[in-house]
């Protein structure tokens, strides 16, 4: 009886483990591969080595290519710009859409939803002309702005959802307590949706950090404006065999900030505020 119960209790874990396994193996291989001279299947062959990390000192593609630090800085710049802009603008727009009734609110919301579902690839050529006309082609700012644009519909909807869950009573209470609308937003509403903002910040940062399509399209080759993902692509070449060790090493390098960022925000993500407001709407 108890044995049977125990076996049943183990079933959910088994399902979880099996479903997570492919991802785990991927990361495992990434780690192994970047520190070993050669791998066969999942296992290292020969000695462990740090040789794949030589890209940290000098460009593996020779002169004329930006250093990894320059590329990292670019990526960081884009990701941070995206995080800040997306969170700030979405939080303001989401608040407005959730709380104020103004003409065009409904159509704005549905338009945003359509934009969110819109396949961004189809817009690339159009955006190219716009960027070139604005003189933003092949610039970090141009890439960042386009990325922000693509992320915004999602951000606005996410934030609106969080604002919708904040009770009107709390806002009314603050207005009666003597706060202005902006004070209500900043001092009362925003702090209560911190988890939502952290989630959005995390999404925005990761999508900026990992972006490949847009930086690839709107910057020239692996020039001074390259991001990490674009830089990684340089390892693929028609003339030389791909050095998978180096690819995984750069991949691992790219992974570090995301992991750190996640560690700092996961508390906020999980710790949704409880209590303080019951019933009512």
């Amino acid at each position, binding site marked *: 009886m108890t044995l049977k119960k125990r076996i049943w209790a183990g079933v959910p874990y088994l399902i979880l483990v099996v479903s997570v396994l492919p991802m785990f193996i991927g990361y495992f291989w990434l780690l192994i591969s970047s520190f070993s001279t050669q791998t066969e299947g999942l296992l290292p062959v020969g000695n462990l080595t740090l040789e794949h990390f030589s890209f940290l000192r000098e460009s593996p593609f020779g002169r004329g290519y930006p250093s990894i630090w320059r590329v990292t800085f670019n990526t960081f710049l884009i990701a941070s710009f995206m995080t800040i802009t997306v969170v700030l603008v979405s939080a303001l727009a989401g608040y407005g859409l959730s709380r104020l009734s103004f003409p065009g609110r409904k159509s704005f919301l549905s338009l945003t939803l359509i934009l969110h579902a819109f396949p961004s690839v189809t817009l690339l050529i159009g955006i190219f002309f716009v960027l070139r006309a604005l003189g933003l082609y092949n610039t970090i700012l141009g890439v960042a702005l386009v990325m922000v644009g693509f992320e915004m519909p999602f951000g606005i909807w996410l934030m609106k959802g969080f604002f919708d869950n904040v*009770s009107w*009573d*709390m806002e*009314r*209470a*603050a*207005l*009666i*307590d*003597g*706060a*202005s609308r902006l*004070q209500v937003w900043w001092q*009362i509403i925003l*702090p*209560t949706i*911190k988890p939502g903002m952290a989630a959005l910040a995390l999404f925005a940062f990761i999508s900026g950090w990992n972006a490949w399509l847009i930086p690839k399209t709107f910057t020239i080759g692996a020039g001074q404006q390259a991001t990490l993902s674009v830089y990684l692509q340089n390892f693929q070449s028609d003339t030389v065999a791909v050095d998978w060790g180096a690819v995984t090493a750069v991949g691992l390098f790219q992974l570090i900030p995301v992991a750190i960022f996640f560690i700092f925000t996961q508390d906020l993500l999980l710790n949704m*505020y*409880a*209590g*303080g*407001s*019951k*019933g*009512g*709407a």
Partner: protein
Amino acid sequence: MKVELENLTKKWGDVIGVDSINLDIQDGEFVVFLGPSGCGKTTTLLMVAGIYKPTTGAIRFDGRVVNQVAPKGRNIGMVFQSYALYPHMTVYQNISYPLKLKKTPKAEIQERAQRVADIMGIGHLMDRKPANLSGGQQQRVALGRALVKEPGLLLFDEPLSNLDARLRLSMRSEIKRLQVDLGITSIYVTHDQVEAMTMADRIAVINDGQLHAYDTPAEVYDRPRTLFIARFIGNPPMNFTEVEFSQINGAYHARREGLELVIPADRAEKAVGKGSVMMGIRPEDIIVDSKGIPGEIHGVEPLGRDHLIDAKIRDSHFYLLADPSLSLKSGDTVKLGFNTKKSQFFDIKSERSLLWN
């Protein structure tokens, strides 16, 4: 603070939320807005608070029209059903928030917040977050936050609805005592007629956005001006049955099948000659009486001190309260005496009282 509402109306497109309400509240008075959910009482309250703008009509505080004044300029405190505490702030920060916004000196904030917290009996919880408080404690914090700025008008929006029955009882008397002590003009919105009866100086009965009555609890109870009021006030509710009047030997008889009651002249005179009218009589005005009218017991609900009896006379039901020691059972025949001195009569069509209009 004296409050006057003049033809106060709120419309959303074609939907009328509040329909031309007129009433005045004296300084220091405790007024209860009573009505079923969706009747417009909270809308009215939110207009007084400045959250909603009236469509037409005026709100006056001490004679000054405040229609266009923002909530923060109205010197009011409000307590919400959901408490509406700020979850990211401690109890102290919650209570002191209104003072902080007024840029009160820090030492004074501290002193006043502590004083209010002590009055509310939450002085020892100042460092807690709302999530770590019980419902009753949260309600006290909300009350403290409303009181700390020493408002001229206190607004309550069903503040006790989320508390358990026992706590509701004690908070009820506490709020009333506090209001009397501080003498702050108060408006209290509720759908609970017991709260209204026990707390109010005057009750405003609201239904479908209209003011049905505005009077003391005793008046509203004894002299319901509409059928709605008679139905809504009183627990268990008033019994209703359609009767027709006839005059026999100078005495007025109200009758329907199986039922014939002699009605005192002062009441009957106003209701006679109108054909079929709606008679209302409260459960406490029906007693088990050996000289009464025979009926059959249809159901018995033990309430502890009393039994609530559902008695049938032909096809009309009457609820009454009976002593449990009578040990009445379903199916028993029982004789009922009616205290017709307390009977009410309403016009069936207009649903207005024939006695008190």
